[in-house]
């Protein structure tokens, strides 16, 4: 395993939430250009892994290491992780009444630019960029005139996540159950958005319970998370298998393996 090639390297990560161990030793490496899918039944720790990567302080990392582009990720504040190119697409994007989308996005973009030593983006360029990126996720124009996620439908909220991703151009995107609550049209739009943003330089971690999103976003690797551990890894065919047979066979394998 050549470390230099890895964008992200998680080594034996253990995480507690309220003194309960949720992640029991995760090891995972992601290279630029790759798409990894993390699947698993509810409660297996998928969202906790996303929180650990984004820097949420409600979780307690008790053991392990995360290296991102050679840096110790756990030492970075959430905002610095974002400015270093990590993006978390939230499972439940929060509504923030009174903070306008435009102000929010402009602040986010300019904070990143500041971090990179660039001047703020001129207003005209920003508006042009917004118009351009809206097309990526087929957002109708009035969404950006509203408060962040306020009164957005489930589908609009998820589209808005991908829209933000398009604007911020992350190197590593973590999409936490982006498919949940989406009808088939919205799912297609969101998936197309993600595919359009794919380059050989960036990587994506798609967290999902169902296989259907992976019909649109084809993963290079599929990992099954169960009871806080990655119990199986494979290619896109593993997702198909899970779709056909459910998670029970994996559970049985694990239980037998344990005994």
């Amino acid at each position: 395993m050549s470390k230099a090639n890895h964008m992200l390297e998680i080594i034996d990560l253990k995480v507690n939430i309220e003194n309960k161990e949720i992640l029991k030793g995760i090891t995972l490496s992601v290279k630029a250009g790759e798409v990894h899918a993390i699947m698993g039944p509810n409660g297996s720790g998928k969202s906790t892994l996303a929180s650990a990567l984004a820097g949420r302080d409600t979780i307690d990392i008790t053991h392990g290491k995360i290296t991102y582009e050679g840096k110790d990720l756990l030492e970075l504040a959430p905002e610095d992780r974002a400015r270093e190119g990590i993006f978390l697409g939230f499972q439940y994007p929060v509504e923030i009444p009174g903070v306008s989308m435009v102000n929010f996005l402009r602040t986010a973009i300019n904070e990143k630019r500041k971090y990179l030593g660039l001047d703020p983006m001129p207003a005209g360029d920003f508006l042009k960029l917004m118009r351009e990126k809206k097309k990526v996720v087929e957002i109708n124009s009035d969404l950006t005139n509203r408060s962040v996620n306020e009164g957005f439908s489930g589908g609009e909220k998820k589209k808005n996540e991908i829209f933000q991703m398009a604007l911020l151009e992350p190197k590593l995107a973590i999409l936490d159950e982006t498919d949940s609550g989406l009808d088939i049209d919205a799912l297609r739009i969101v998936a197309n958005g993600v595919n359009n943003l794919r380059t050989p330089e960036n990587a994506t971690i798609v967290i999902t319970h169902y296989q259907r999103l992976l019909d649109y976003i084809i993963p290079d690797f599929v990992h099954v998370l169960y009871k806080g551990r990655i119990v199986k890894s494979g290619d896109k065919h593993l997702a198909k298998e899970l779709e056909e047979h459910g998670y029970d066979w994996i559970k049985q394998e694990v239980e037998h393996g344990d005994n």
Partner: protein
Amino acid sequence: METIESISTSQKYIELFRQNRDLIGTEDPVFLTKLREQAIRSFEETGFPIRKQENYKYTHLEPVFDGEMSFEFMPRSISFDNQELFRCDVPMLDSHVLTILNGFFYNPEGPALFELENGVVYGSLKEAVLRHPGLVSKYLGKNATLDNEAFVSLNTAFSQDGIFLYVPEGRELEKPIQIINLLLSDRNQMVQHRNLFVVEKNASAQVIICDHTLSPHLFLTNSVTESYTGENSDMDILRLQNEHNNSCQVTNTWISQERNSRCQHGTITLHGGMVRNNLHVKMQGEGAETNVLGLFLIDKMQHVDNFTVIEHASPHCTSNQHYKGVLDDMSTGAFNGKIHVWPDAQKTEAFQANNNILLSDTAKIHSKPQLEIYADDVKCSHGATVGQLDEDALFYLQSRGIPKNESRLMLMDAFAHDVISRIKQSSLQGRISELVGKRLRGELSRCNNCAMNCHD
């Protein structure tokens, strides 16, 4: 013990009045002389409210009134340079600017009272009493009751000047009146001034009141504003409090509304040591509507107490109250909102919301809705919340690369924006937004960088 102190502080003011009787209102017409005597008698009966009284439970004002302060019975000449004191960074608000300096109307180079061709009158109340005694006597002291109102009584006995505004039937005040209350002294000082606004039938007016301290001395203000809103008229009053942390301010605002009139009253408290705002709105005509807004942002040892009484005295009236507070450090606040629906006031709609954010473990807020409903066909609701900044929202903003501190400011701004967005005049919304933003960033510590542009 408390009672004895209470007598002595009250006694101090009664004696102050008696001893200086010949200096107070030397040119008063008979009605005003009578009103003052009535007021001091009423004050004698009531005395200062003590903390045991429910209405003043959270704001103990008597010790402040007991402090050593200078009182002035006529304006003292003070040299002050507008240019030096106010440096403004946004274009001037298009308004008629009227200045009150230490409780007295201040316009050394101009008239004391402006009388327009269309009948609109504005300027010094003292001058209005002399020139229009009939008009003033019809309204002065009619809204603000003396009964059980120690601060109104005290003000009525002592106050000699303030702002008078009269808009006759069918007229519109084309530009807002902006009242700049300046406190500037070389010693600790008490100030009591009085405003009277009369907007007759089918008329409209807008008043902005800015309270400022310009020297670091201890200032104690006890002001009364009476506003009469005629049938089908519109009145907006917005008060911006920006006094230093060594000041104490008691405002008493009494609004009456006739049939189908619309009133908005806003109180934005950016700075102040101890602030008590008493607001009394009486909708005495059918179909009246009132919108009351309040926003305060405090830290350190500051204290703000908003006390409102909304009287639905007639049927089909609507009232909305939105008060919000952001409290940091050791600051304390209170909101007491009383809605009183009279027996015949059917089809009343009364709504009240009070939301507070505590930024520290040591800040405190007391929130108390009080509903007294004597009619049966009414819609009344109230809600109070006390909380911290939404951690999920904070993380969401941070996860997009916005630093924690900036994210907190954005959320506080958003919280305040909910009140600001209800201010009717959009031009004012922007200014208030800017001021609140500065206040939250700690950039607004003095009024000379205030965006209201009292003077240019």
